């Protein structure tokens, strides 16, 4: 399947009205807030957003204000995708019956890692299996930041959180990050992709593709959280580049089952000497600080090994290597 790519210039984006507006209460250096703004820059017409409980819901809707300049519905933690299913199906039948104007309405469901990997996966799996025409955006800050940094299915191996605290007994989280995007690919839906806010153009393009495609689309967006990652608030966007450059979070898309590397990751695939060591990415985050002590430093090699292995696997899926 071919999806027509939306051509735009930086000027187009700058001139396009913001639908996620300033004045929200996100922390300094919050990448998820940047991600929200970028997502809505890609909107093409009438759009409804439904959002699970999470940081972005909380900071953007503090009474009596809202950052959302479009119809927006807060849902319970577990069911952004189910909510979107209802919206999409209702709009569809109302258009068909002539009860509303016959024009296309895009539906976007947004959730954090908790609302996607963990409590939200049942609703997500059900919605994409039923084939609702909507885009699900996961903003992944790799833990429950809203309730104060508890581990999630999206928290990477070795990260210290308040419920996987690094100490005498455990080296932070003992389990690997759940391969959520691959799980959605396995549902055989038309469009799945990963994105990172440093590569903003790539991110906007992918949101637009997700909207344009007929049927369900899933976008996994990397979103550093300085409070939870114990990182410098000024470095969130830099971290979202480092994650790609170290192949911790490669950028790809999968259109009707065909994996394809996106250019920032493709550059590394073509010139492997550009691939940076994972240590560079881990060292600037307090949540991995214990990995740089003698007790747990072995885990650093393990993380590098796993990252390399996953990268190789991805290259194979993309028909490179």
């Amino acid at each position, binding site marked *: 399947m071919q999806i027509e790519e939306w051509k735009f210039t930086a000027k187009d984006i700058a001139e396009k009205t913001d639908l996620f507006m300033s004045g929200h209460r996100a922390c300094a250096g919050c990448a998820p807030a940047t991600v929200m703004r970028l997502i809505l820059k890609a909107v093409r017409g009438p759009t409804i957003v439904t959002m699970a409980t999470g940081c972005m819901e909380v900071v953007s809707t503090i009474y009596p204000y809202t950052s959302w300049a479009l119809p927006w519905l807060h849902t319970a933690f577990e069911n952004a995708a189910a909510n979107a299913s209802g919206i999409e199906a209702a709009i569809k039948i109302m258009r068909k019956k002539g009860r509303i104007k016959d024009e296309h309405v895009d539906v976007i469901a947004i959730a954090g890692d908790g609302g996607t990997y963990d409590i939200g996966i049942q609703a997500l799996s059900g919605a994409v299996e039923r084939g609702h025409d909507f885009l699900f955006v996961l903003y992944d800050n790799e833990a429950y930041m809203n309730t*104060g940094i508890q581990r999630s299915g999206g928290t990477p191996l070795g990260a210290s959180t308040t419920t996987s605290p690094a100490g005498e007994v455990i080296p932070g989280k003992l389990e690997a990050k759940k391969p959520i995007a691959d799980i959605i690919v396995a549902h055989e839906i038309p469009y799945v992709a990963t994105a990172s806010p440093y590569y903003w153009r790539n991110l906007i393009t992918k949101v637009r593709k997700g909207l344009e495609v007929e049927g369900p689309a899933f976008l996994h967006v990397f979103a550093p959280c300085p409070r939870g990652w114990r990182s410098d608030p000024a470095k969130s966007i830099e971290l979202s580049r480092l994650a790609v450059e170290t192949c911790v979070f490669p950028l790809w898309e999968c259109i009707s089952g065909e994996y394809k590397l996106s250019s920032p990751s493709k550059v590394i695939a073509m010139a492997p000497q550009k691939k940076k060591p994972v240590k560079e990415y881990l060292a600037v985050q307090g949540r991995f600080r214990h990995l740089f002590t003698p007790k747990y430093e072995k885990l650093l090699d393990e993380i590098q090994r796993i990252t390399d292995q996953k990268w190789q696997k991805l290259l194979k899926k993309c028909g490179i290597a």
Partner: protein
Amino acid sequence: MAKEKTVLTGVHFMSGDIACAEGAIAAGCRFFAGYPITPATEIAEHIAARMPKIGGVYVQMEDEIASIAAVIGASYAGLKAMTATSGPGFSLMQENIGLAAMTEAPCVIVDVMRGGPSTGQPTLPGQQDVMQAKWGSHGDYEIIALAPSSVQEMFDLTIEAFNLAETYRVPTMVMADEVVAHMWEKLVIPPAEEIKIVNRKRPNTPPEQYLPFMPEDDLVPPMACFGEGYRFHATGLTHDEHGYPQTQSSEAQTKLVQRLCDKIRKNADKIVRFEETMVEDAEILVVAYGIVARAALSAVRKARENGIKAGLLRLVTLWPFPEKHIAKAAEGAKAIIVPEMNCGQMVREVERTAKETSVFHLSKLGEEPPTPMEIFEALRRHSK
């Protein structure tokens, strides 16, 4: 494995959530499955840090449905198990609370109540889940619910909850509120040997004669755990003493469901706990629980200073409800005031049991619990 003390004997300055976690550990809880939610998250966080050091398990589950289900599993596997949550999570747990009641799996559920319904006011206190505690799952069953009103009680009543859960093989709830959970005050943890611990009754019959759901005189069947040589069947379907499904038999349904209710109802006198202050000669009574009872106590004292014969009956067990005692206390009183952080829940129980006495509800939602002055004003108004 590093070993840390399980009972932190001594005088502490602690938050209610942490005291609850320490109470669970002191009671012998070695399994916690949970999911982060304000204002109960600190319980999970504290237990996550403590369990690895004392040979226990903390598992963060993918949601609250999974959390309570894991707790039931752990309970049958032989550990004392609990979970902690708040309103939205408590709602998700309801089906499995019914399963725990039906399979008679001893377990403790802490609900730190915030403002509802739905997401409501996550950081503010509520007492809106107290009826849900009793009626939340479908079908007839009984549970036990306790309402702590101090950090000390967050510790003490969590231990009590485990003891009751183990004694009666019933899901037992600690219905705390956000204020009690988040406030810091003095906590005295006694020496381990002074803490009363109850463990579930074990079978005293050989495996081949064991009937897993055959009750003894107290209506509670002894409990074997998985892997101990007692082969048995546990199910959420209506079952007979053997544990086997009896989905067509009215006799089996009546016998089982009636017993699930009766084992709490008929033992209510042993379970019920409350605290009376100046009730004996009281002409006007306050019935309160949780943090609200603290404000009520202050109001009652002020009323006495002002010549109003007021008294306080503080509910420690919400369920079973201390019917007899409310009825008795109500006899001499002209009026009863029930201040609650909801639109009128336990007040209905008071009305039902107090019969002749006028009952007034003082509702307060959001922001803060009713203040002593607000309760005092109500006492003054209704004592005229």
